[in-house]
């Protein structure tokens, strides 16, 4: 196990280096520059001064070297659009906001998603199955901006204590959490339903039942534990997506999270911020995948990571 984790860590560093390099090259090959403004182009001299200020006047290879050096020290650099915060500060401020919202959404999805799927599977082709199906279809197919606007229009506008948008108190997180949770909730419920159906048809369930175990024990102890494995494996990406925030949800609800930076930084060609959030996201994703793999190993005794040639 220790050897496995060490190996994974080494791989991680290589992966992150590759991500940095690819993003760096792609970012600089797209036309545009960070200093263009909505309807004012800036004079050449000022532009040159700005390029110098942010070190963009140096050859790309040199910029790349400087960037790698800084990032090794954990310094993402100065944002090219904000004179107020560095990229580190922006991430340090945005991430807790997005992460807390994501955690709430994850909680909602984890409580209701698998439960809904399991209930649907146990009542296949009956009313609960159809209800779960409808919820899942809405969750998967209604884009989050529609769901967000819908919640604002019909819930926030009618329920006095739920604010329409903005940030500051716990009340502000209710609607965005629901909007964020819907998609993973629906995915989990569909996944749970199909894997549950498969498990329920297995011989060991029949055996358990024939041993005279009560239905509840069979479902909770034997069926759910096996059926939940696919959900655990999807958690890695789901959790990291939820933690770093969603551009659409954050924009609609006016939430000062990390999600907005992903799109805005590219639109603004804020090079340092693009790199910062990309690398940060990559690190989160890799860590989550590692945790999931370890969790998988603990839940499923069939997988033994140390014996590689199983």
């Amino acid at each position: 196990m220790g050897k496995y984790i060490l190996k994974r860590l080494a791989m991680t560093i290589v992966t992150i280096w590759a991500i940095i390099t690819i993003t760096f090259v792609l970012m600089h090959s797209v036309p545009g520059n960070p200093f263009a403004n909505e309807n004012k182009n800036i004079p050449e001299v000022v532009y040159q001064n700005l390029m110098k200020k942010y070190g963009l006047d140096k050859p790309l290879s040199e910029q790349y070297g400087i960037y790698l050096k800084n990032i090794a020290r954990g310094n993402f650099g100065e944002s090219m659009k904000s004179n107020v915060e560095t990229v580190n500060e922006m991430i340090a401020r945005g991430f807790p906001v997005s992460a807390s919202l994501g955690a709430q959404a994850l909680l909602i999805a984890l409580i209701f998603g698998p439960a809904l799927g399991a209930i649907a599977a146990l009542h296949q082709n009956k009313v609960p199955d159809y209800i779960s199906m409808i919820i899942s279809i809405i969750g998967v197919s209604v884009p989050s901006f529609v769901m967000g606007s819908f919640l604002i229009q019909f819930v926030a506008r009618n329920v006095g204590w739920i604010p329409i948008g903005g940030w500051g108190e716990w009340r502000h997180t209710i609607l965005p959490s629901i909007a964020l949770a819907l998609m993973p909730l629906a995915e989990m419920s569909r996944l749970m339903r199909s894997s549950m159906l498969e498990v329920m048809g297995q011989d060991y369930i029949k055996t358990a039942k024939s041993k005279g175990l009560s239905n509840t024990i069979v479902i909770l102890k034997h069926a759910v534990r096996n059926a939940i494995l696919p959900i655990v494996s999807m958690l890695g990406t789901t959790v990291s997506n939820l933690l770093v925030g969603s551009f659409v949800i954050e924009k609609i609800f006016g939430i000062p999270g990390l999600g907005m930076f992903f799109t805005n930084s590219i639109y603004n060609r804020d090079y340092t911020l693009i790199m910062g959030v990309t690398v940060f996201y990559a690190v989160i994703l890799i860590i989550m995948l590692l945790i999931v793999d370890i969790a998988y190993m603990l839940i499923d005794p069939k997988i033994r990571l140390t014996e590689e040639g199983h």
Partner: protein
Amino acid sequence: MRRKSILFLSMALVVAMLFTACSTTTSKEGKKILRSNNSSEPGTLDPALAQGTHESWVLENVFEGLMTFDEKGELVKGMAEDYKISDDGLTYTFTIRDGAKWSNGDPVTAEDFEFTWKRALDPEMAANYATILYYIKGGEAYNTGKGSRDDVQVKALDERTLEVTLEFPTAYFLELTAFYTYFPVNKKVVESNPDWAKKPDTHISNGPFKLVKWDHNAKLVLEKNDLYYNAKKIKLDGIDLDIIEDQNTAWQKYDGGEYDLLTDLPTSVVNQLQTEGNKELSIGAQVGTYYYNINPDVKPLNNAKVRKSLSMALDRETIVKDITQGGQMAAEGVVPYGLMDEKGKEFREGAGNLIEYNPEKAKGLLEEGLKEEGMTIQDFNNANIVLLYNTSESHKKIAQAAQEMWRTNLGVEIGLENVEFQVKLDREQSGDYDISRAGWIGDFMDPMTMIELWWSDSAFNDAKYNNPKYDKLLLEAKTTMDQKVRMGNFREAEKMLMEDMPVIPVYFYTQPYVQKSNVEGIVKVPIRYPVITYADIK
């Protein structure tokens, strides 16, 4: 047992929610706070580095220049108690107001102004808006690295006397001193703490309000500055600005009663409010023109008659009425409404409508123009002329309408291409386009703010217009204080421009905003966002 605990839990939750609901409604009682939205996070609150309305709306409330706009929207003395202009119009001597103070209690001095302007011109600052200080003699040279700081002709003669010498006798210089790049900063504070503008507690300003809270991407809180010399004129105790980028959400918050005033409205909302005659809506004036650049290097667009025929075939009334629907006005030239001429009347009215909609005549002009180029309509269509615009729903609708008008009125096929904003800028600068969408918002209230765009050397002249006669008219207007000569030249220049048609103006921007019926004292200065400084809530 289990059921009971669930019941208890849900009750506790309800009670907790009731408490939170109560606390928010009572906390602000007794204080007059104007609540609104600032459409995006300011990149800075240092006036020298600011570059857009998302910054200036805040800055205009927390800082004040030598001149300022009063509650009627008129330009009046601000930090300046008095000023003298030399006979040649080149030297301005300002006397700083006695008793003018910074929010930390320091007196505002002439030295602060000298320091501020030189600081903004410092090439090391790389301030985007430094060009607006080029009117000061030696300013351009210093900013471009050709001159020294000491040669910038702004000097504090004593604590309260500031002398400025200009490059040209600039008729609108007084108004420029009310522009945010000219706002003073506190020399002592800035020199001792370069990061002063980053945090509310070190953000020292001299205006009617001061910054007390800044939650990035979420909220800005301004509080009345009691040290402001004119504090008795300020009726609000504070201003709360959310930072919400989504126009629809901001509108819902206004409509749901969470804001008292809102600008940057969704187009559909403006249209709806206008149709129902809603009294909360005002269509504020704005100095800005939406236009199409034409690349003169592309055949047959090199021919003025062809360009004019394209302009003449556009039914602008239909575009503003049925497509943009935000209260915009059909363009009548490049200079929009809201700018005054030598008689104090609308410049636009004096200059007249220089743009004609006439499909018949347009068709004739096109044929003539094409003949001169030795081309036919068929050749025009084979040239695959494309209209380039940056991806946005409204630009797309306007482009589609223009495409259709050109097709039906002229029989020409013009393609559409949308690209990301940055890509569009890049292609315009490298001349890689046929026709491209553009817009310009003026910085000061003089026709010069629009006319100078097509000066042959202008950095903003994407249509690469180059007409020595035009340049001569502009130069003359730049070097005289005689408003009659200046305005006469502008009228002539604009006419010339509309004859040559290097750009096709489409409409004049407006700035719709809404305010609740209990909000009073909002004025709209054409070059500014609605001025909320003197607002009152009844």
